[in-house]
């Protein structure tokens, strides 16, 4: 998701090209709390509605996004329930070795007798844990840096953005492999893993927030609150952030999906989650050798991994549409 509108150019027709930039739009409402009345497709009543109700209304009308949300919630709830109530724990070793799927073991068992259903669901839980931590961390760092750079401009901005440029010069995956090789020697390293993935995932949201803040800081409502004596901190947190919240939330959702891809990749390489803990990437790695013979060891982790990531991307796409409906208008 790189940004096409490069900061090094002055556009003669800024409106036309700037709108192509993915997600970098301000919300239709200029000031928080004031309803749009009858301006959106689903709210012709004219009664005042909050920004959140409008966005929510647009979100629930998208079938794919709702399927994504349903799947994600279902997977999350199921992974917790299975962890507590399923007859096998993912660490249980039974005498059924390499059994194909059956009523007792719906996803079969592996070579040392672990129940694969318990393993896959434990993997889903671990992946979600890591991904949500990464997204929270990356968003916090990215928003802070982007907001400071965009609000204060000048040398602070130059310094921070040159640092972002520098981080983006290295392939993320290569740096992750390097940093995780140290962590791979410890067991129970998921938090460390989340921290390094998060430390490399904040750059995009930082650029996004900075771009938004550069235009927001010139708006009248910011000038008004400054004239009323509001502190910089209050202007940033209370007035500007709520107006940039759409792209931030969309990006946080995408970060959840991307960090599952990174985590599973590292686990596949043996550099991520370490046994006895499981993650879906680790299960794919363990199952690949017997993909054609004991297919259940490979197919179930692969299917759950793809469905999990896909559900998150669908939610993200739905949120983008909900926050920014003008991109999806039907052409005349």
């Amino acid at each position: 998701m790189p940004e096409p509108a490069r900061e090094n150019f002055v556009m003669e027709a800024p409106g036309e090209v700037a709108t192509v930039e993915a997600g970098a739009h301000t919300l239709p409402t200029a000031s928080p709390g004031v309803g749009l009345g009858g301006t959106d497709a689903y709210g012709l009543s004219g009664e005042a509605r909050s920004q959140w109700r409008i966005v929510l209304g647009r979100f629930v009308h998208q079938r794919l996004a709702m399927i994504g949300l349903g799947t994600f919630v279902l997977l999350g709830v199921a992974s917790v329930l299975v962890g507590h109530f399923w007859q096998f724990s993912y660490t249980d070793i039974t005498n059924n070795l390499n059994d194909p799927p059956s009523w007792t073991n719906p996803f079969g068992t592996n070579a040392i007798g672990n129940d694969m259903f318990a393993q896959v669901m434990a993997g889903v839980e671990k992946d979600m844990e890591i991904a949500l931590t990464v997204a929270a961390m990356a968003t916090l760092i990215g928003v802070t840096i982007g907001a400071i750079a965009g609000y204060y401009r000048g040398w602070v901005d130059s310094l921070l953005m040159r640092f972002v440029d520098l981080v983006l010069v290295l392939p993320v995956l290569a740096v992750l492999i390097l940093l995780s090789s140290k962590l791979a020697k410890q067991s129970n390293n998921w938090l460390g893993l989340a921290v390094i993935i998060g430390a490399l995932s904040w750059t995009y949201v930082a650029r996004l927030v900075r771009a938004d803040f550069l235009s927001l800081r010139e708006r009248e409502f910011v000038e008004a609150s400054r004239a009323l004596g509001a502190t910089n901190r209050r202007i940033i947190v209370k007035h500007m952030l709520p107006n940039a919240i759409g792209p931030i939330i969309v990006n946080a959702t995408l970060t959840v999906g991307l960090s599952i891809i990174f985590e599973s990749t590292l686990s596949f390489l043996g550099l991520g989650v370490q046994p006895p803990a499981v993650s879906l990437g680790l299960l794919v790695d363990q199952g690949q050798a017997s993909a054609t013979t004991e297919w259940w060891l490979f197919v179930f982790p692969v299917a759950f991994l793809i469905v999990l990531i896909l559900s998150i991307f669908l939610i993200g796409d739905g949120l983008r549409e909900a926050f920014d409906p003008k991109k999806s208008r039907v052409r005349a």
Partner: protein
Amino acid sequence: MFAYILRRFLISIVILFFATILVFLLVTSAGDPLALLKSNPHTPHSTILAREKLLHLNDPLWQRYWDWFWGVLHGNLGQTIAGQPVAPQLWSHLLVTLRMVVVATIIAIFVAVGLGVWAAVRQNKLADHAITVTNFVLLATPVFVLGLVLKEFVAIPINQHVGTTIFYTDGQQSPTLSGPFLSRIPDYFGHTALPALTLVLVTYASWAIYQRSSMLETLDADHVRLARAKGLSRRRVLVRHVLRNALIPVTTVIALDFAAVLGGAILTEIVFGWQGLGQWYVTGVTTLDVNIMLAYLLVTATFVILFNLIADILYGVLDPRIRYA
């Protein structure tokens, strides 16, 4: 224009210089290259001291950085832990990786533009939905998963069905390969087809989504409506007035995505057993071979900076509305 390119070029060199510092700090913090040796209680102390001296591990960090940097400026990338020069290994692995990356990128560009345009023209029709759903599924599939699935459930069944090996799943060429170039082409094809396909499928999806939205944006523009109103044919409007403009942002996105493609190549090489740059790097990381890690990160950083520069210049060349500030 020329002054602008020159300035961008100089800035790129400055970024590259800072990147070398960042890379060096990252690599030296990765761990102690002699950890394995030290963990063996039978290693004589004198051996450890000799190795430390050989690898300059006791020198201050800035001194080690400067020695490495000075070497790089003179084309000397140092030696591996095993004592072989790094540079020849780097070039041979780079050639292997470039073969896959170049083929995959070119195909991915055509697929992405083609499908993106098709989906946009048929917006909200069956073709659009099918393409969009496929794109999303591919976007949600990690590279290694796609590679493994293609290997296990496409290549091997086809080979078994036909009775001979069409798609090789291990290595970049047959170990015994020899003879004139033309006679080697089928072997190269058999080895390159699947890894390149994997890389194409994971790479094109985000570009196609981007191309589609860029097309929709342009289709909505006033100049397109004017062109149709003038009586130009749909086809001509689509190619000359819409596609030409819609390609501008996509071009820069493709150039800027080069780092991601290189990242994807690491996994493709590992899944398909190619002795490429990514495989070499991962081996370097696991053996904590400082000079291999440095060489890989230096080369990829150089490529990424180069492509950023190309993206900047292309953006200006393709879009005459842009003034150089």
